């Protein structure tokens, strides 16, 4: 019997005033998989992820996460998931260790002191643990946010542009650690990104969104083959421009 999906989104609609930010989106994500959510600005990626996290109530449709309907049953599963997003930050005046202590307690992490040391070592933060978060570089802050998102060893990880402010070397290093974490913990990841190379490298499946809808959904290899392109970036541009051309043709 196939395992039930880690995330199931059914006919999700989110309308702000008259504007549909997400317009009838449906997809399922298998446990232990890494899925990329691609789309330009205003495509509906962040709204979709926020709805999956239970931060937004859908206008209609249904979102189920680890078997719990969101946002109604969110407290059944929030301790089993975590996220990282540029829309939120860690308190600046607290040291990394203090921040991780607070979030570890919120998530009910056992053996918290050891877990913090472990994450410090894994994310190369050991020497910085007692430094205020506000005094770190952008790259170091991103690693702290990642440490927070891994504090409870989540089964489901939602990542919104996790390497956006990192130099290529650090970004590559972070990706490698994320992949290792997913492999070791059989964790499910939904990754929203503008970085096509990142998605191509990390994800076994790509969902492309545009104007609140899913434009395409397949493995990177099949998308490349179907569009006859060499990179996902070229595929993304094809998808992004297709509807514009259709609109122009209709006019």
């Amino acid at each position, binding site marked *: 019997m196939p395992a039930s999906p880690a995330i199931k989104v059914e006919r999700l609609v989110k309308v702000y005033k008259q504007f549909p930010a997400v317009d009838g989106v449906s997809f399922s994500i298998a446990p232990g998989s890494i899925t990329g959510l691609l789309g330009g600005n205003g495509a509906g990626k962040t709204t979709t992820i926020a709805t999956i996290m239970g931060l*937004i109530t859908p206008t209609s449709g249904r979102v189920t996460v680890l078997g719990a309907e969101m946002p109604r049953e969110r407290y059944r599963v929030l301790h089993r998931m975590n996220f990282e997003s540029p829309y939120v930050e860690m308190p600046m005046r607290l040291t990394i260790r203090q921040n991780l202590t607070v979030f570890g307690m919120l998530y009910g992490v056992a053996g918290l002191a050891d877990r913090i040391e472990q994450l410090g070592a894994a994310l190369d933060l050991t020497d910085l643990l007692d430094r205020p978060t506000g005094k770190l570089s952008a790259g170091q802050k991103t690693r702290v946010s990642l440490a927070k998102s891994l504090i409870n060893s989540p089964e489901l990880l939602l990542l919104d542009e996790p390497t956006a402010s990192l130099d290529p070397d650090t970004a590559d290093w972070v990706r490698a650690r994320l992949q290792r974490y997913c492999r070791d913990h059989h964790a499910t990841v939904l990754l929203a990104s503008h970085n096509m190379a990142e998605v191509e490298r990390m994800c076994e499946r790509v969902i492309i969104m545009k104007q609140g809808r899913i434009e395409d959904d397949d493995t990177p290899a099949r998308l490349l083959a179907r569009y006859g392109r060499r990179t996902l970036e070229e595929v993304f541009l094809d998808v992004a421009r297709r509807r514009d051309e259709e609109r122009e043709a209709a006019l």
Partner: protein
Amino acid sequence: MNARTQSAVAFSPRRIAAMILRYWYLLRSSWPRLVELIYWPTVQMITWGFLQLYVMQNGGLFARAAGTFIGAVLLWDILFRGQLGFSISFLEEMWSRNIGNLMMSPLRPFEFVTALMVMSVVRLLIGAVPVTLLAIVFFGFNLYGLGLALVAFFINLMLTSWAVGIFVSGLVLRNGLGAENFAWSIMFLFMPLTCVYYPVTTLPVWLQPAAWVLPPTYVFEGMRALLIEHTFRPELMLYALALNAVFFAGGLFGFLRLLQSARRHGSLMQTGE
């Protein structure tokens, strides 16, 4: 009780402790925050203390009211600083853009509110205790001389301050930092109507019913009865407690509805202005 209500009211002392620890770390890391807690209450107390000295020296009619000015200002500070302590701790999450992290964590709204209530008491004590001691040194006014009545006054004022703080936090969650000014100013709406410095009978007759629906009015009347007539009026405290129960329930209800509305409108992801 349905599943949703159950989960919203489930309590974890560890999560509450985590939030208290978070605010304690913050206070400890910032001496301007600590100084601010003491600075304004001291300035207020000294200003009103000298005014009281002047009135006592020059107005025989007012001499009987000895102590009411400083008493009023200290009790007003409990009400005002209690609400501010609650609201500022909440605003710290908005200013640091941490609210999304908390809302996405297993922290329940009731646990969050409880931690904010505890912190409002902690912040108030850090500011108020030195100021009450200074009032003894400078003006010979011993607030602790009110005895058990002070406990009744304190509980009632804190309950009102929490009720207002909870509601204002809901407004900020729903409307973003554009609603921050309510946190600083809303309590001043109470000032004229709760009759901090004068008896309720001073108000026009048509306005007096409005004063009597506010719990702090009973506290300030009770304080004057104690200081001027040397009579403790427990019935005033009971009325205040009953009204506070209504205010507190209203504040919580408003907060939960505004949180629900924030989820509907996507405000939890956009906490700016």
